[in-house]
């Protein structure tokens, strides 16, 4: 490292040592760890808030006939559940990990653009407020509540929806701005802030997963933002983008939405597939298997995810040739995903494994996401999809893929890095209870939904025929148990963060852990790697 010019050093005032005091530490934050923690706190809070609508949905579906919600309220509740979980829970949590971990993993003093970083975060609460504000406005007699079209916001339903739709579209615009800014910052950080010697193919796999995720966000989110502007224009300014009366086409919105929406699945997924091999390697006490194969798979998944979107639209009346193309390309994307699975198995193969909570969640991820992936192959068959598409089979598949994948991965990562972030171990007993109860109750919720779907129960409908009653009751009871189980996690989290009951964590935290972040004390000091580390 070159010598530091003392004259310039003086410009860096002593604010480098200690965090600022008071609330402005968070409101005005420029520190990547503080901003990362804010993302995590916001995302975990929204995970619980977004879980409430899910419990409402299952309450309504506990028994046939409408007991809990009106059909209108049901539609709003499923919409908010989807939007909150995707945009306000999973994405902020994975972005939080990116902010916290990437500078530590690449030996950078901070993110490249710290103020931009904070701007990206504070757009999220603004968007979340706009999303649910219509419920408040309804209380004072304005409008009909929030958006009620489902999270896909399909036209022409969206064009007929109440004012809640405008709030949702504006919220998505802010979310898009937030994601774009966060992605720019992450890409610049990874490209420019690496410590000397940290070459591209030495980057930890998690960092690579974020290279692809951020590129995807920049490549697709602006398209959805353009679409939202067109929706507002169609609703209020007399344009006909999505209306056949003026020569437009509602299917165009489906194309725009899924051009964004399918990569979005990988945007949710990739950061956790990036963190998984770190966890597997740690608890198998073996080096990661297939580093380059994983990196190339990320890139392949990223590229392919942009060209497979219309498999979400097999029942929209696309020409047969188009359906066949999207069927084959969708099936092809399972190849790089299978490579990832192979590398995960290779990493734990003949390892001396121990089963601490992060490892349990990581293994649960492989099983549940595996089921999600395989049932996805079933749906990717354009001919078979006609049967499954609008049934609970798809709902079950989706949740195996996105709860089984990102949410299990997020739990694994939270347990894995919590001791590093707080300096305290969480309760291992509670963590294992949390895992096993989550694994069991999750399957109780969603396994019956595969059967319900095959039997023909339509999705999105608040009521159902009597023959579906027993399995729905099982699913709903499972959902209440799954929800209650998450309170264990909340308690364990609060106990670790706010009390000193957990034993102190060492710098390395886990016996088998490796990586620059584990060379730092737990918790790491406010500023780290002000002098870049030496990478051999």
């Amino acid at each position: 490292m070159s010598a530091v010019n003392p004259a310039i050093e003086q410009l860096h005032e002593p604010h480098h040592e200690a965090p600022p005091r008071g609330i402005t530490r968070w409101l005005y934050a420029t520190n990547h760890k503080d901003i990362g923690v804010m993302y995590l706190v916001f995302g975990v809070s929204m995970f619980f808030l977004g879980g409430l609508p899910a419990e409402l949905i299952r309450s309504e579906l506990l028994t046939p006939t409408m007991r809990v919600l009106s059909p209108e309220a049901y539609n709003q509740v499923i919409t908010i559940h989807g939007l909150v979980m995707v945009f306000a829970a999973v994405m902020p949590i994975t972005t939080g990990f990116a902010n916290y971990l990437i500078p530590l993993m690449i030996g950078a003093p901070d993110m490249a653009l710290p103020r931009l970083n904070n701007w990206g975060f504070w757009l999220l609460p603004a968007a979340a407020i706009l999303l649910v504000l219509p419920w408040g406005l309804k209380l004072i007699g304005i409008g009909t509540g929030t958006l009620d079209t489902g999270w896909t916001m399909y036209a022409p339903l969206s064009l007929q929806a109440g004012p809640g739709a405008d709030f949702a579209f504006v919220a998505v615009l802010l979310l898009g701005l937030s994601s774009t800014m966060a992605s720019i910052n992450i890409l610049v950080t990874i490209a420019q802030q690496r410590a000397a010697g940290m070459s591209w193919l030495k980057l930890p796999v998690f960092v690579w997963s974020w290279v692809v995720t951020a590129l995807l966000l920049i490549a697709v989110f602006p398209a959805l933002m353009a679409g939202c502007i067109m929706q507002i224009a169609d609703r209020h300014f007399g344009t006909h983008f999505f209306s056949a009366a003026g020569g437009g086409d509602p299917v165009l919105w489906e194309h725009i939405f899924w051009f964004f929406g399918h990569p979005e699945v990988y945007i949710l997924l990739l950061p956790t597939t990036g963190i998984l091999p770190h966890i597997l390697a740690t608890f198998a006490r073996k080096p990661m298997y297939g580093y380059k194969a994983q990196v190339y798979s990320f890139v392949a998944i990223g590229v392919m995810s942009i060209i497979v979107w219309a498999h979400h639209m097999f029942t929209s009346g696309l020409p047969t040739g188009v359906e066949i193309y999207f069927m084959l390309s969708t099936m092809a994307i399972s190849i790089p995903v299978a490579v990832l699975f192979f590398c995960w198995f290779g990493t734990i193969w003949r390892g001396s494994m121990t089963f601490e909570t992060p490892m349990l969640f990581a293994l649960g991820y492989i099983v549940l996401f595996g089921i999600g992936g395989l049932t996805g192959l079933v749906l990717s068959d354009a001919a078979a999809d006609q049967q499954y598409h609008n049934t609970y089979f798809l709902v079950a598949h989706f949740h195996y893929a996105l709860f089984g994948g990102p949410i299990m991965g997020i739990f694994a990562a939270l347990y894995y890095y919590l001791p590093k972030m707080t300096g305290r171990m969480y309760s291992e007993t509670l963590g294992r209870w949390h895992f096993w109860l989550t694994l069991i109750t999750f399957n109780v919720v969603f396994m019956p939904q595969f059967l319900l779907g095959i039997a023909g129960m339509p999705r999105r409908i608040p009521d159902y025929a009597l023959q579906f009653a027993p399995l729905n009751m099982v699913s709903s009871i499972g959902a209440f148990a799954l929800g209650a189980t998450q309170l264990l996690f909340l308690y364990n989290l609060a106990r670790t963060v706010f009390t000193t009951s957990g034993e102190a964590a060492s710098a390395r935290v886990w016996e088998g852990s490796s990586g620059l972040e584990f060379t730092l004390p737990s918790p790491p000091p406010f500023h780290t790697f002000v002098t870049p580390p030496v990478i051999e």
Partner: protein
Amino acid sequence: MNAVTEPHHPYYIPRPSPYPIVLSAALFLLGLGAALRVNGLLAGGWALGLGALLLAYVLFRWFNAVIGESRAGLYGAQEERAFRWGMLWFITSEVVFFASLFGVLFYERNIAVPWLASFNAAHSSWAPFSPWPHFTAHWPNSGPAGARFQVVDPWGIPALNTLLLLSSGVTVTWAHAGLRAGRRTQLKAGLLLTIALGLTFLGFQVREFTEAYRQLGLTLHSGVYGATFFILTGFHGLHVSIGAIMLLAILARAWRGEFTPEHHFAFEAVSWYWHFVDVVWLALFVFVYWL
């Protein structure tokens, strides 16, 4: 592989700053105001106005703070690279935004309209049931229920505007050459010319829109043609306006004697943006006005 060179001083991490959260609050007010206003609630207008004022204020303060830090010598080569790449990725996201709008144009023109008209084809078994038996696939098109309209002649104002914007790309490059060679008069003259060309362009656009509404019957309501025409030209015009404001700020800074031949990233960022807006216009001229 050696993109990261050794920094000559610790990377500059700004102090805690109120601007990001205030900027978010301004955008929240704008979003809230827009959502209320389009639904006829007048309170939305107040939120919009307040949001716009706050936005202008916080952007002014934030950019001023960055300029101050730059002039205090806090930014080295690594910081400058971060700004450069940040701006390039931002422009990339803008490219995607406009590419999506062009995608919408191609989809409406080449897929949606022919699909809609295919119901009426002689061999179509749907033909007897078509709700729009006289609708044919042609472009420009305002749909089965659309009113008649005329399109803007590409060889009138649009061709002139193309000339104006292309010249402005040349003048901003000329200004840059002046800056790098230390010829400050050339810098200022080039910037002034660029801004004048940009503003003239905007004036012509306003005139074109007025004519479209008053004489051609081409409005937002003119089906897919009107919708795609105005969203593409409108967002381009918005970008030219933003670019012109940024050029004005750069001109003011040049007048104050800022920028050195070696160190003038703000100038470059704005000129990249201006060239980007230029290229978008070329695509607009070809695909919206001409073909």
